[in-house]
């Protein structure tokens, strides 16, 4: 920096930049430090309650309403201060909640969806509320909650008796709920000449309408999502659920259930244009209905209403009339409630204040405020009847339809083990969505997997607690021994003072990295190895972990069908993505190595996709692979059309090819390849490595080869490939490792659907860890993944020795 005792202008810049960066870093930390300092030092003697909620479909409006309501609570209760946390949508909410729970610092009051009640209550995360109700009643508290004011099903949804939800102790006060049904495009009904049915319509009327609308040009009868809860609602209309008395006694084999599922499968797969359930993920939920080309969409709850209200009015471009109808009836008239409560953490230090807040947030006024969003129905009957919810000025007109359904709606009961839903959904997907297997087979798969899940040694309740004390002592001993050995080792042999000093300086300068590595890499890695021997729900603190020995490994190596599927899917992907990607990247690098005008621009353009962010790009590619309107299938369709046309010109018949439904019916063949095709888009990094390799090849060799009579192809085979072989090996190893780490794309684009056919290994690992809370199992999976990748890498290194030529003389 200093030359001839003077400072050059360049170094002033550098010094300036360093100061600016340092100031920014200091400022960032200062902010946090000051905030915490203020919090601890402030004379505010009020009790602090941490409140966590989400605002998914409700967006900013919901956030503002909750915020305003909490501020009003603060004003009404001067002794209490509320800290609000809103991580975003429900997914982020549960992730955040889990980390807070696992850290032993849960929020005091938070949302809980009724499907989570069993798993949360089972490990004692949420507090039973009856004692508060009793106390209020005893004290004649005017704010006391009378559960009779609520729709009974919404209350029962938060009961848990130790094995399943629906009855037992109360773990939350429902804040709002929804029943489910279909949203109808009234214009299409009119065009098809189908009379709009009443609220007590039947499945026969439903399917007749769907068929009639499906016969209209460019229209489809109905979207019918097959989510686990919706399927169970559908079965309930035929008087049967999947569970009988308990989750050990499943009724899915009941002839009524089988018949109903067979009927649904036939509607979807044996008829054209009647049902379109999710040609892909895009075609679920609101968006497919918004197109105006689908007669009905459902079963959905009230949550789609805010986005449907943005449908233009009839007469405007893209506008049409629409309304809601509750679930049609089969042999019985049934519906379900999906609801969210305000619950209190078991570990909350201020349960009484928390209870006050729960009452505040679920009282009539709060519910009416929230009802204005149109997002959900107030759980208090009086509030639900009020004008805030049943707003005649706003669509849908049939607000009464939701409420009528509420009177006969049931709670969908869920077991403690959250895998139930996942197993049920994926096996039903295979039968109903992709249609790859029959209903009977899907039921058998589901029953087999669920029974294996229940019979697993991991499902046993009596495991001894983790010997944390012993492990901590062993770990500490190990660290101290290693450190001592390091010190001794570094002192071995005679060394000059200058050398010692230099060594000390070296350690000192490297220490930020070493400390960071130990704390943030080595420790978690070691911890995951320990956890792989444990049964630990990620939502509880570590002292709840139980010692499971090798049970996790045993189960995942011998008895996990989904793991085998995920491995198969991952390998299938790797088999296409690795060689394909290398060929594309090498081909691109050869092009980029040409000396033509503007080559730098081309290189940048080809590299660009590699710097784009994962989630956004994945959303983009979801559209590309959409079976109906996606770019990929439109191009394929055009190509097939051109092929057919030229064949017809020669008098031959059409090819009979159709573009695949990537993530739908053809997912078994085309699901993983779709991700491989997508991965080719990110070959920029690999391409750059190849390009650098190509530019290292001495020009002499090509010249010598061309004098020797080698043509371009022979030069590529005899010079380029051998000279690139170390680069190829490196890239292949990186690609193999990368192919086992596919996550973001699959998580965003398909979530593993359908039928686990795109559930890549790491995605399944994530599901285990963050959806089923099986941290021990997930840790074991991570170590198995490491072993797989390690073995593959070693095999590649060993077998490649013969083909890989390393430059340079042995020195």
């Amino acid at each position, binding site marked *: 920096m200093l030359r001839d005792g003077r400072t050059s202008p360049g170094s002033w810049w550098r010094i300036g930049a360093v100061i600016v960066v340092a100031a920014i870093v200091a400022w960032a930390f200062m902010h946090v430090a000051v905030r915490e300092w203020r919090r601890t030092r402030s004379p505010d003697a009020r009790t602090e309650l941490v409140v966590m909620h989400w605002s998914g479909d409700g967006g900013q409006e919901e956030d503002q309403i909750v915020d305003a309501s909490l501020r009003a609570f603060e004003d009404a209760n001067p002794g209490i201060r509320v800290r609000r946390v809103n991580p975003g949508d429900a997914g982020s909410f549960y992730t955040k909640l889990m980390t807070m729970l696992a850290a032993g610092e849960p929020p005091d009051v938070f949302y809980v969806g009724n499907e989570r009640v069993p798993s949360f209550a089972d490990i004692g995360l949420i507090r039973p509320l009856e004692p508060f109700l009793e106390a209020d009643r005893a004290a004649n508290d005017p704010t006391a909650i009378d559960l009779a004011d609520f729709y009974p099903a919404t209350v029962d949804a938060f009961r848990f008796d130790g094995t399943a939800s629906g009855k037992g102790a109360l773990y939350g006060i429902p804040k709002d709920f929804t029943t489910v049904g279909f949203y109808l495009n009234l214009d299409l009904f009119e065009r098809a000449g189908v009379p709009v049915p009443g609220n007590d319509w039947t499945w026969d009327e439903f399917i007749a309408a769907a068929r009639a609308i499906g016969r209209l040009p460019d229209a489809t009868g109905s979207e019918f999502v097959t989510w686990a809860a919706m399927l169970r609602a559908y079965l309930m209309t035929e008087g049967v659920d999947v569970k009988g008395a308990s989750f050990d006694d499943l009724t899915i084999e009941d002839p009524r259930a089988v018949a109903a599922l067979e009927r649904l499968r036939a509607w979807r797969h044996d008829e054209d244009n009647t049902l379109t359930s999710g040609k892909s993920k895009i075609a679920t939920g609101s968006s497919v209905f918004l197109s105006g080309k689908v007669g009905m969409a459902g079963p959905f709850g009230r949550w789609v209403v805010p986005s449907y209200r943005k449908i233009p009015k009839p007469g405007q471009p893209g506008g049409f009339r629409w309304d809601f109808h509750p679930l049609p009836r089969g042999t019985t008239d049934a519906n379900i409630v999906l609801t969210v409560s305000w619950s209190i953490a078991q570990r909350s230090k201020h349960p009484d204040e928390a209870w006050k807040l729960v009452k505040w947030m679920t009282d009539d006024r709060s519910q009416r405020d929230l009802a204005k969003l149109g997002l959900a129905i107030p759980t208090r009957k009086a509030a639900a009847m009020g004008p805030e919810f049943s707003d005649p000025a706003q669509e849908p007109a049939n607000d009464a339809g939701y409420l009528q359904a509420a009177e006969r709606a049931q709670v969908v009961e869920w077991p403690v083990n959250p895998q139930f839903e996942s197993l049920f959904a994926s096996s039903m997907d295979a039968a109903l969505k992709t249609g790859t297997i029959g209903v009977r087979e899907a039921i058998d798969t589901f029953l087999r997997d669920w029974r294996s899940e229940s019979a697993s040694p991991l499902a046993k309740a009596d495991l001894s607690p983790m010997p944390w004390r012993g492990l901590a002592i062993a770990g500490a001993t190990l660290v101290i021994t290693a450190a001592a050995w390091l010190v001794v080792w570094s002192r071995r042999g005679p060394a000059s003072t200058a050398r010692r000093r230099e060594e000390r300086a070296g350690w000192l300068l490297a220490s930020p990295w070493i400390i960071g590595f130990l704390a943030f890499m080595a420790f978690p890695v070691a911890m995951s190895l320990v956890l792989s021997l444990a049964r630990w729900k990620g939502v509880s603190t570590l002292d709840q972990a139980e010692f499971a020995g090798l049970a996790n490994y045993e189960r995942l190596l011998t008895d996990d069908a989904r793991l085998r599927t995920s491995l198969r899917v991952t390998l299938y992907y790797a088999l296409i993505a690795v060689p394909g990607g290398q060929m594309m990247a090498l081909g691109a690098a050869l092009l980029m190595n040409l000396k033509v005008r503007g080559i730098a621009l081309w290189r940048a353009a080809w590299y660009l996709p590699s710097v784009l962010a994962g989630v956004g790009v994945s959303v983009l590619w979801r559209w590309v692979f959409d079976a109906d309107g996606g770019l990929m299938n439109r191009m394929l369709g055009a190509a097939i059309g051109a092929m057919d046309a030229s064949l017809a010109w020669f008098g031959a018949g059409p090819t009979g090819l159709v573009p695949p439904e990537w993530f739908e019916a053809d997912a078994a063949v085309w699901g993983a390849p779709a991700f491989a095709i997508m991965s080719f888009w990110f070959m920029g990094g690999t391409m750059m490595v190849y390009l650098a390799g190509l530019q290292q090849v*001495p020009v*002499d*060799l090509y*010249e*010598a*080869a*061309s*004098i*020797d*009579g*080698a043509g371009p192809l*022979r030069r590529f085979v*005899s*010079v380029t490939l*051998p*000279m690139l*072989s170390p680069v190829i090996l490196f890239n292949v190893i990186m690609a193999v490792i990368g192919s086992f780490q596919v996550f973001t794309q699959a998580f965003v684009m398909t979530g593993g659907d359908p039928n686990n056919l795109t559930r890549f290994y790491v995605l399944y690992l994530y599901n285990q860890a963050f959806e089923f809370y099986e941290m021990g199992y997930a840790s074991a999976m991570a170590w198995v993944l490491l072993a797989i990748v390690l073995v593959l890498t070693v095999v590649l290194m060993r077998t490649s020795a013969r083909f890989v*030529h390393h*430059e*340079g*003389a*042995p020195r």
Partner: protein
Amino acid sequence: MAEVILQSVGKVYPGGVRAVQGVDLHVRHGEFIVLVGPSGCGKSTTLRMVAGLEEISEGRITIGGRVVNDIAPSDRDIAMVFQNYALYPHMTVGRNMSFGLERRRRHGSLLRALLSPAYAAERRAETARIQERVDGAADLLGLQPLLHRMPRELSGGQRQRVAVGRAIVRDPAVFLFDEPLSNLDAKLRGEMRTELRILHRRLGATMMYVTHDQEEAMGLADRIVVMKDGIVQQVGSPTELYERPVNRFVAGFIGTPTMNIVEGDVERDGGVLALRWAGGRITLPAGIAVTGTRASIGIRPDTLAPVADGPFRGTVQSIEFLGDRADVLVASSGVRLNARLPTERARGLREGDTIALGMPGVAHVFDGDGRRAG
């Protein structure tokens, strides 16, 4: 007959840079011709145009009576040895040498050999012929023990030899060498030079050789082509170039140590011409015609000798003993001269001594443009 004829050959790079222009050269069959010049003089480009590695922008190149301007390198019947040897690093020495022949096989298809026994026999015979030629070349260069080694296991000299062997195997009409010895150390370079000359005699082939080292050129060439700035300065045998350089550049480039140049004004005194410079005056030999008022004389250091009343009087600045000779640098007024003296004549000298140098031998006279006068 493997003659190489270059007619008005020029190379213009995109962007208009002229690397070579107007090269006329007739390389006779069996001749060893060396292109020499400072870096950037166009000698390599010229060679590469002969090889076909550079497109010929202007003029015509004929090899063995065939115009090769539009003929691929592999079809020009040439072989080339590169400065960095350009051995295929992933092939054994034997395969490196046979690679070119393998590419030229007429019965190379393994598939056809499997289908037709006659073809298979032809193929076997061809393989044997290739092996024979590789062995022949290996024997010639003493490479037999190295045939199964990889290039990375060889020393620089051995690699050089393999590169030459690879060229020999092909039995080309013309050998092209692009600075083949410049990556070797001085001792090895000397040895390889001798070997190349012997090889040339044994093969009797036409060879074109590029180097920047005039000593190497002098040692190897039948004829030398001196180039500068893309233009041929002089073509001639080593002795011709040494004794009658056509201009100051060639005079200065050829010969070690470098020729002394003394520049001055031309004085005409009746029919006698003389050169005057700041420190003295010297009469030019009779019969030399100089146009213009400026001229220079070139004096080879080994033609200078201490002469009592020599025209160059000055101080000894440094003495370098080389064994039987010594290089003495004398600073005379206006010029510095390097004299190569027999050691016994330099023995009495000390740095700082005053000495007068004269030249009983021949001086070269150049006119103001640097062209040889007379």
